[in-house]
């Protein structure tokens, strides 16, 4: 019932293609996060799902129904906006009631639904206030209550946490996931924040410049990014990416990068050898590298960030490329400006095409 699908959906605004041939299935009761930098088309995709924008081509499916031609108000969806979009002239109660009144839900039933929604979001004390009298977090909960009150099949959320302060954001993140489990509804959630995507999603869909880059469970996308864009976008601190040339000698395949030579994992070796092009980009997550006097990579320490629970040692390779090493907080931080050597967990090495697509080089 709460299934959602984009079927070859394209949206153009004049010469700009905001969403390019998007095909994506969201299962019933799934929490799907659409993530990408600003302008990647994620909000446009969500708005087409809501019925606020019409696709240039392709179809939108909600439930078992093709809704491409169905008006927004007749789709069984609710949306939480980034600005919350509360009705400023109505009390909290009236705001939450509004979708019920629009659908002519009779009084007693309406009161019960409003009370339920208000209770589940802890708004009971605030029902007679106006939005202007509420804090940001309270407004956000009112927006959620207004969305859940009529039990839609699908929830759409457009950056609902971005106007909250950092502490509240972490708390609300968990509450949103709980709420989704409790209501057993489908959620399509748009954010530019990869931490939200990683922590909340059943699956994440990464978009860039209108194109869907990769869909999958957060761990899978993190462990096997499909291309350079995804590799750099997901993860904090970001993955180190270094340009290099493939070198085959004495039965081993390795990549010559500035400051050293890195051996390739078996899965990448085959894929690399099939190519004529020697240029590749090697990716190393900061937690898969460590300072090691025996390591193959030479670097100079530029800055050390001590975070309390871990340290980020930010180094520069021979060609000035930044390379971040993440280490436990117990380790002694190296002094800045000193030369170090870095070793890399080669099984966790990522290899990408050096071309514009930057796709992952790996054979199964």
């Amino acid at each position: 019932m709460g299934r959602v699908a984009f079927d070859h959906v394209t949206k153009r605004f004049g010469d700009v293609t905001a969403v390019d041939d998007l095909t994506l299935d969201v299962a019933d009761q799934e929490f799907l996060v659409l993530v990408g930098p600003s302008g990647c088309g994620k909000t446009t995709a969500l708005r087409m799902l809501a019925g606020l924008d019409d696709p240039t081509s392709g179809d939108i499916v909600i439930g078992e129904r093709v809704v491409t031609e169905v008006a927004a108000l007749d789709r069984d969806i609710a949306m939480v906006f980034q600005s919350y979009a509360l009705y400023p002239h109505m009390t909290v109660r009236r705001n939450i009631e509004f979708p019920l009144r629009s659908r002519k839900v009779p009084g007693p039933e309406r009161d019960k639904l409003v009370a339920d929604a208000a209770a589940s979001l802890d708004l009971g004390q605030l029902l007679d206030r106006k939005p202007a009298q509420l804090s940001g977090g309270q407004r956000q909960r009112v927006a959620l209550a207004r969305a859940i009150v009529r039990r839609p099949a699908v929830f759409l959320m457009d950056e609902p946490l971005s106007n909250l302060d950092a502490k509240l954001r972490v708390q609300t993140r968990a509450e949103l996931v709980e709420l989704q489990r409790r209501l057993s509804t489908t959620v399509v959630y748009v954010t530019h924040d990869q931490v939200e995507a990683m922590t909340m999603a059943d699956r994440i869909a990464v978009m860039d410049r209108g194109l869907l880059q990769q869909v999958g469970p957060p761990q899978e996308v993190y462990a096997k990014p499909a291309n350079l864009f995804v590799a750099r976008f997901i993860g904090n601190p970001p993955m180190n990416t270094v340009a290099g040339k493939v070198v085959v000698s004495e039965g081993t395949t390795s990549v010559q990068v500035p400051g050293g030579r890195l051996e390739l994992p078996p899965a990448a070796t085959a894929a690399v050898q099939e190519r004529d092009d020697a240029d590749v980009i090697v990716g190393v997550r900061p937690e898969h590298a460590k300072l090691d006097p025996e390591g193959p990579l030479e670097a100079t320490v530029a800055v050390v960030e001590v975070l309390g629970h871990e340290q980020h040692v930010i180094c520069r390779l021979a060609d000035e490329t930044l390379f971040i090493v993440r280490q436990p907080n117990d380790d002694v931080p190296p002094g800045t400006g000193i030369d170090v050597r870095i070793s890399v967990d080669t099984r966790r090495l990522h290899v990408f095409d050096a071309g514009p697509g930057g796709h992952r080089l790996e054979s199964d």
Partner: protein
Amino acid sequence: MARTPGHALTRAAQRRREALLGYVLVAPALLVFAVFVFYPFAKNFRLALYRDKLFGPGSEYVGFSQVTDVLGSADFRQSLWVTVVFALMSVPLGIFLGLALAVAAHQKLRGIGIYRTIFASTVASSVAVASVIFGTLFNPVIGWLPWMGLNPQPPLLQNPDWALPAVALVTIWQSIGLSFIVMSAGLQAIPDEVMEAAQLDGARPWRRFWRVTVPLLSPTIFFAVVVGGIFAFQAFAQVEMLTDGGPIKRTNVLTYYIFTTLREGQDEGKAAVLSIALFVVTLALTLFQMRILEKRVHYAQ
């Protein structure tokens, strides 16, 4: 922090100098206001207390008797009534039509700019031009009414029943431009997301308009009602050009009554009383609107 007396003194002196500069800068405006507003305003109150001598030049002090005479007269009451009816006919309809056009033009459509320009255009035409246009259209010989097969007798602008609505119509037409611009600005200030939220909340266009657009537009509507009311009570040129207050004083609005009292009656005292009455009525109307209507206005915080 220790502060030396010398330091404090300089600061006081500095403040005095700043104040002096302020007065110097305000002086020219104050002078203009004094000569063209404050003095005539005060003089008007004085004139109201003097009655023109029946014979011979000059006037004599009569106290409030002239005020009570004029305000108690049937002519004044009739003129006030005409003014109120005129305002009731022209203001709400002008605002409503301006709002309707603004809503119609508040779309992202190709070429909508052309419509916006057309709707706003009457703001650029003077009352005199509007009066000439409609005077011609209403003309019983060359106008549109006979062409449309309508030929009221007596002709529209001489017709006791239709003269005032006709004048109101000209006023409405002329006010649509401003009303449209003000309402369009108000509509643009409503966040798109709120209207979209209403759409997703299942509200059909009619409900969206009455439950969301109108309340959020209420400060703008209120502003238009207050300003429109003041304009309506001060309307003059359209009466002067179309009907001369007739027929049988059916369009004798207060401003026109003041004008004829002064020009034809040469009665400064009576005209002064009427002017004060117009001022008081306008003030009372505005205060009433602010007290009563404004309670229904939702200002965004």
